[in-house]
């Protein structure tokens, strides 16, 4: 940290805020202490200083005014109305909610931005140490390495490129995306945008991006089409294709607590209805499902504590699911070193 640099930048801000006219680089050099004598060194330092002010969010206006001493030459100023945070007054309940919101990003990549915002609001006179009555502490994690780059790309309207390993794909593929937004559900982050390779809107999960996300064009190159709601694109998969259907199942007494939580018409099966293959006590119940391909794997979890009686397609799917488990389990594990055990 350079004290002299901070001092120079502070003087530069005060100088450019105080002026109504555009000040040329030369005028600034004379007004602000701390710039070097060499023209070349001054030019380099001034360029860096301008960049730092922009990073800090200082609205540096570039232009010229004929009436001023600068003539046609390009000059700089900071318009106070563009610099200053407008007046903001919060009631105590609003301030309490603000404190809660600022803590949401704790330790995540937006945390720094949130505390920066809080600092400015405090500076504007807002009291943020108001105890919250809400009683809930929400947290958002943005640990995906791709998050910061993608958020900046969305913010700046910049196209990106990355390697992506989709589920069910045998290899990664290079994707070129115009990002429209980043959204999170159940702690998982997704980027929504226009996929330039597929020529349509697509959703990518950040955890499946391999390696770095690279800028793939200039800032401002991406325009989000009117009416795009990134949340709907990411999470609204339309109405389910299948109508809900009832399934008749047998549940072992005292087991399969998961399905029992939403089972209907649970009734004990009289011992007389159970032949020798049915050990112990059983209940019969009705479960509602839509998608055989999802429901069969879910029920398979409960092994021989859940048995599907009807409908036949679900019953068949259960049999295939369990057979595939057997087939996988029976495949001999390959020795790690590639040699075959001679047992």
């Amino acid at each position, binding site marked *: 940290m350079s004290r002299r640099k901070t001092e120079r930048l502070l003087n530069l801000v005060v100088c450019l805020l105080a002026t109504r006219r555009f000040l040329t680089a030369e005028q600034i050099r004379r007004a602000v202490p701390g710039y070097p004598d060499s023209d070349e060194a001054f030019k380099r330092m001034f360029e860096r200083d301008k960049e730092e002010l922009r990073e800090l969010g200082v609205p540096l206006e570039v232009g010229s005014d004929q009436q001023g001493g600068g003539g046609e030459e390009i000059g700089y100023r900071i318009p106070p109305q563009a610099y200053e945070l407008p007046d903001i007054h919060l009631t105590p309940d*609003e301030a309490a909610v603000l404190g809660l919101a600022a803590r949401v990003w704790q330790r995540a*990549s937006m945390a720094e931005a949130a505390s920066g915002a809080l600092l400015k609001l405090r500076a504007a006179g807002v009291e943020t140490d108001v105890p919250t009555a809400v009683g809930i502490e929400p947290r958002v994690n943005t640990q995906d390495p791709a998050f910061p780059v993608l958020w900046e790309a969305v*913010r700046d309207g910049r196209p990106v490129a990355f390697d992506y390993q989709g589920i069910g794909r045998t290899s990664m593929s290079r994707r070129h995306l115009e990002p429209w*937004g980043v959204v999170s559900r159940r702690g998982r982050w997704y980027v929504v945008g226009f996929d330039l390779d597929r020529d349509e809107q697509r959703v990518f999960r950040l955890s499946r991006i391999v390696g770095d996300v690279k800028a793939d064009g200039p800032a401002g190159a991406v325009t989000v089409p009117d009416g795009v709601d990134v949340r709907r694109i990411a999470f609204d998969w339309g109405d389910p294709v299948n109508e809900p259907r009832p399934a008749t199942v047998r549940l072992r007494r005292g087991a399969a607590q998961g399905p029992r939580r939403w089972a209907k018409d649970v009734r004990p099966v009289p011992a007389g209805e159970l032949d020798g293959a049915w050990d112990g006590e059983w209940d019969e119940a009705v479960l509602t499902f839509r998608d055989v391909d999802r429901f069969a794997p879910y029920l398979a979890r409960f092994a021989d504590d859940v048995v599907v009686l009807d409908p036949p397609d679900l019953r068949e799917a259960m049999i295939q699911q369990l057979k595939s488990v057997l*087939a996988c389990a029976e495949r001999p594990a390959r020795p790690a070193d590639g040699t075959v055990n001679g047992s």
Partner: protein
Amino acid sequence: MTAKTGGAAGRPAAAKTAATTSTDRLGRLLALVPYVVNRDSVALGEAAAAFGVTEKQLIDDLNLLWCVELRAPDPYCPIDLSYEGGEITVAEAESIARPLRLKVDEASALLVALRMLAGIPGLDDRDALSRLIAKLESAAGTAAAASSQVSVEVDAYSGSADPDRTGLALLRDAIARGRRVHLSYYVPARDENTERDVDPMRLLVVEGNTYLEGWCRRAEAVRLFKLDRITDLAVLDVPAQVPDDAEPIDVDAGLFRPSPQDEAVTLELTPRGRWVADYYPCESVEELGEGRLRVVLRTPDTRWVRGLALRLGDQGRVVEPGALAATVHDDAARALARYGMT
């Protein structure tokens, strides 16, 4: 599944870097002046706390403000500043007496968080929330626009149609009044319904799900309870007694933190089974080529892995430990026998 306290952190915690670049420091100075101006005078200690710096650092910052002097074209009066007797006052600082506008990142960080809060069911501060969002949007101006391109969804679990009877409302009430609660709680990892008395500590929304953190009198430890797994809830007429040494769970370090004593389970996954690596915290993930993966999980209880293997079908299988793989095989064979297949 209840998360455990202690144990090795699964993921490295983001290092909190001290902001000490000259740009950061300039940002602090530009906020410090209006902070003091807006309050007429501020105690050194109070200002240091508000800005997250030591008093020494703060004095160093204040000394920098003394250095403001412009030589030309309009000679500028130095800022009149004092921190005598530990009270800071600032005068003659008109040009920087207002804080800088919010940057896009800053406005977005707050607005995205506030809109996420608005998605939490049973929040009775909704009115303050929408007023605050409107005020911030107006203060941020154009910097607020990009925030609509980021969104965090919260699963709208309430447990009851009556807003006063939701699990969330009952638990908030129990926390506010310091009451013990009785939970019927479903543990999917063991497919068990459990009954337990819990002294509530706080409610958390992590990874889009709502949790109760509390001292579980059955486990005699701090536990997290996912609200949508609470099947029955009663607020007891007994004061909550959270032991003084009960440490809140550091949820920022990840919800599931395996302990080195846990058993290691190795799974091999086909390309279609890769989702497992997304959903479960893996100790290691190894690419086997053609989209296949080998992952190692650590778990104190392998029962749920049996269920996972049955659910995976041909998407993956247990490799190690061999005994667990054999159990999965037996589970599938017994289940098939119920369908008349042997």
